[in-house]
């Protein structure tokens, strides 16, 4: 495995050089706020490499909160009147700098939904394919981080093209894919790190993992039947304080549910894909007025069952959670997915 050493003095220069071929994304400190958000970097802007977890996850790079999918005209003088068209879209190379390893791993979970053998969501897939993920290892995990127990972790390479590890006055850049290699080349970073670099990364990884204080187990969930968990007696208690605000689903890097809405302005309009949430009654409301998830408890159960049971059964994989802890941090009533997972694992 190739490891490149990037002197921090060359960092900003390299980023600037890479902009010729890539559009850069990274964590940006929100003015006067205590948090950062992920976004496209302005021309002279550099990513905030000291940022803690961004408030929202970086899923929006391939899955914007609102995205035009189709456009139409209602102008009867146009021969395309009432005929949907795909607008021209460009997907230039994007380098996602400083993404957390578990946030990048979340992309792989979401990919299972949007990129299947039968059908492919072109908007998500094209945006994802254009991305090169230059992750930054998490060396100071937050108190809410439980990523090591979700098959991910603070140094998880699975979703990354390059893993950057902060080594004081330099970054050690572990090249994971050819895409990653191409980005480093475009930035002009090519100095091989010494032989001891791999060992150093491994040591820092162990140190970071050891700092993580909480975990989840889901081995028993796998063995239990859907109906046993669905009918469990803890859902009322779990949902009691929930206000169905939907914050957990918005901050989550793996929540992918969306709505499709038409918006018309004058005679022109667009069909949009917009974030939706299983926390809302409208999500499942039938035209007849019947709603299969009418009650709050049903919606809370749906969210946890989807993440911790249905996903696992459907894809014969782990859980649909990377352990970033955002939903715990942002929940206004302190609902904690770790506790729910424990109840389900029982």
């Amino acid at each position, binding site marked *: 495995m190739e490891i490149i050493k990037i002197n921090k003095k060359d960092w900003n220069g390299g980023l600037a050089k890479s902009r010729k071929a890539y559009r850069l994304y990274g964590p940006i400190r929100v003015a006067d706020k205590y948090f950062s958000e992920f976004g496209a970097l302005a021309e002279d802007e550099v990513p905030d490499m000291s940022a803690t977890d961004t408030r929202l996850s970086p899923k929006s790079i391939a899955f914007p909160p609102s995205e035009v999918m189709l456009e139409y005209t209602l102008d009867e003088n146009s021969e395309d009147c009432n005929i949907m068209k795909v607008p021209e879209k460009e997907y230039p190379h994007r380098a996602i700098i400083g993404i957390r390893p578990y946030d990048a791993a979340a992309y792989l979970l979401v990919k299972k*939904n949007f990129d299947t053998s039968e059908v492919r969501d072109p908007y998500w897939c094209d945006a994802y394919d254009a991305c090169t993920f230059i992750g930054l290892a998490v060396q100071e995990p937050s108190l809410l981080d439980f990523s090591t127990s979700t098959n991910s972790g603070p140094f998880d390479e699975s979703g990354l093209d390059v893993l950057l590890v902060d080594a004081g006055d330099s970054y050690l850049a572990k090249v994971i894919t050819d895409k990653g290699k191409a980005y480093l080349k475009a930035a002009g970073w090519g100095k091989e790190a010494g032989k001891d670099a791999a060992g150093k990364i491994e040591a820092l990884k162990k140190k970071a993992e050891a700092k993580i204080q909480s975990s989840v187990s889901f081995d028993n969930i796998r063995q239990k039947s859907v109906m046993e968990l669905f009918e469990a007696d803890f859902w009322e208690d779990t949902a009691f304080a929930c206000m169905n605000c939907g914050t957990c689903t918005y901050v989550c890097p793996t929540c992918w549910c969306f709505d499709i809405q038409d918006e018309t302005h004058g005679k022109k309009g667009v*069909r949009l894909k917009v974030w939706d949430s299983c926390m809302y009654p409208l999500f499942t409301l039938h035209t007849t007025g019947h709603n299969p998830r009418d009650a709050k408890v049903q919606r809370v159960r749906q969210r946890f069952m989807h993440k911790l049971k249905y996903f696992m059964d459907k894809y014969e994989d782990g859980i649909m959670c990377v352990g970033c802890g955002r939903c715990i941090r942002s929940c206004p009533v302190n609902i904690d997915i770790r506790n729910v997972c424990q109840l389900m694992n029982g």
Partner: protein
Amino acid sequence: MENPYLPYPVRIDDIEIATEDKSLKTFKFVFINKEDEEKFAYKAGQFAELSIPGKGEIPIGIASSPVEKGFVTFTVNRAGLVTTHLHNMKKGDVMGIRGPLGNWYPWDLLAGKNILIVGGGFAFTTLRSSIIYMLDPENRSRFGTIDVVYGARTPGMLLYKDELIEWEKRDDINMHLTIDSPAEGWAYNVGFTPPVTEEKAPKGDENTYAIVCGPPVMIKFTLPVLEKLGYTHDHIIMSLENRMKCGFGMCGRCGIGKELVCKDGPVFTLDQINQTPREY
């Protein structure tokens, strides 16, 4: 791979009022681009999204049959925003169709078997598609006996009445039409669908499958009847409905457990349904 969100442009070729209360209309669409019809190759039991720019989309079962060429038909109940707009549209108007979507009645499994169809009210659209498919001269010999129990409130609320009467006259399909209460000039059964099913339907066995579509109350009382007649849960086939948007398994709202009604369904056996949460 084509963009699965992009509807095929279609023109409304014909509109027929389908029930006496005018709440249902049957729309016949033709594809504006001929090659789209081939891409839309479907099987009886599938559905499609009817797409009206500026209004939205609505998932509706395909009422025409794969053996009918040159058009597709949908019988639509006026209920919400999109369907109300559709009911006000005219012959010649242009809109979109996205599909075909979902699975279909398991025709490979059903080959060589006796088929019982139980339908109620306006949930007869994909059943009509299925009957036309099975009665097609090319296909009829591939199935055993065909029994159809179809009930509606009044004679005027039965869909596709001309075809029903025609099928009554045939000897290769056993029709058991019924209405809720007696009506003048009605020569067939009177009574709710479940008791008529109990009286007229063939007994269940290894070689007989039941396909059941109807309002929840009909389903509720028909399932025990089928059990009594000897139909096992893996021989009872149903088609579910849920709120849908994408129609191909991505937007997440129509899930019942790990199954998505739009993609893994809408057709399930009762056996499969019993293993999923009742969230439909």
